[in-house]
């Protein structure tokens, strides 16, 4: 299973990558994309929207199912991956790269310490 060590994770299958002191990039894990199957639609918030940890911030749809995306942290959206509108399959093909979803400016950087390590996430899905 592909779970990069440098990332942090949530039980809801998001990954979180620290970009700078107060910004993180967020997407869904390789495990999640593989469980969903062919992803055909991604709905994301807009730049400026506030998100709250544990609350839905968007959704991802495969041919067969709709799944909510849950915010890993509190913060404000500063960037959205607009290319997923045209190419949602990027989430399948490169979930930690081109398949990223949002960049969030954190309300409180200390929140990152509550996220799971790769090992902890691995245990949560076993």
């Amino acid at each position, binding site marked *: 299973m592909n779970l990069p060590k440098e990332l942090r994770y949530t039980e809801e299958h998001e990954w979180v990558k620290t970009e700078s002191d107060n910004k993180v990039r967020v997407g869904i894990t390789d495990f999640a994309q593989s469980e969903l*199957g*062919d992803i*055909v*639609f991604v709905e994301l918030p807009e730049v400026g929207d506030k998100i709250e940890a544990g609350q839905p911030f968007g959704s991802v*749809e*495969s*041919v*067969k199912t*709709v799944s909510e995306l849950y915010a890993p942290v509190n913060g404000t959206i500063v960037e959205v991956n607009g290319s997923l*509108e045209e190419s949602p399959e990027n989430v399948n093909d490169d979930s930690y790269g081109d398949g990223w979803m949002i960049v969030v400016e954190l309300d409180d950087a200390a929140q990152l310490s509550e996220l799971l390590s790769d090992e902890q996430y691995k245990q949560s899905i076993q």
Partner: protein
Amino acid sequence: MEQLKRTALFDAYKDQAKLVPFGGWEMPVQFSSIKEEHEAVRTRAGLFDVSHMGEVEVSGPDALALVQKLTTNDASKIAIGQAQYTLMCYPDGGTVDDLLVYRTGEQKYLLVINAGNIDKDVDWIQQHTTGDVTVTHISDQVAQIAIQGPLAETILQRLTEEDLSSLRPFTFLNDVMIGGVPILISRSGYTGEDGFELYFESKQAPAIWNLLLETGKEDGLLPCGLGARDTLRFEAKLPLYGQELSATISPIEAGMGFAVKVDKGDYIGRDALALQKEQGAPRKLVGLEMIDRGIPRTHYPVYQGGELIGEVTTGTQSPTLKLNIGLALIKSEFAVLGEEVEVEIRGKRVRAKIVKAPFYKRAK
């Protein structure tokens, strides 16, 4: 929770497929990818385990009378070697199930029913059985494999001397020997493509499954799951019980009026269905294509001018057309081609238009 049932093929593919519960069964939803499997069936061929489907044999001097009483189509038109699509209805016209009836002998019929409805259907059939007729529930003894797609005939033909090119749609050959197993080969399916459905003794299922996969390998035959089966049947506007058909949806509403004969004599549901044919059904199944971003999904409400007019029965992104489309059951007066409606997706109403369905028809 009730233990999920498994078909005789379960062990043959359990390590190669993603498994899900479906109608009380643990079934493969996909092997490689729904999109790839879907495309294989549209352009080459796909192999499906559909052994979860139910089979009931009806035989005896009053067999035809029983089938006629239970079903909406005219079973007296079925010659030996032919199959017919038909439905069983409640007295109010709601649907018990849709099924295929095969005439296998002078006084013998094979009814093929939906997996999730087996217990209910068998009860219903037995409850209405009168006269000199024997009803035998044989689901556990029968395996069913479907091979579907433009290359299905080519692949299957390699395994038999019987001339499959002369087998017309909705006809079948009985006891065709393939891999040493007598098989009922029916030219039929649930994908909108040419293809065959094979019925035989369930013990032989793994051997036949593997033989077919091996034989079709060079042609790009793929094992397919229920996910692709659903997107394929949806594009072809073939109804799925529980979505397009139910106890509260009549065959007329679902657009299956061609299989409802009101002049064949009395049967269960006839009066209600005759009235719907004459006066028009209250609701109609229509195609929807999204104008705004979004994918319509089962049970999403449909509005026009602020009025709730119905709901989506099935929807997805069509793998063949790459469009976000759906089928919706709406009040008949709103079923006008080209009209704009709104689908409520997660609390937000977005625009769609009523379009022609089926979305896909194969070139003949």
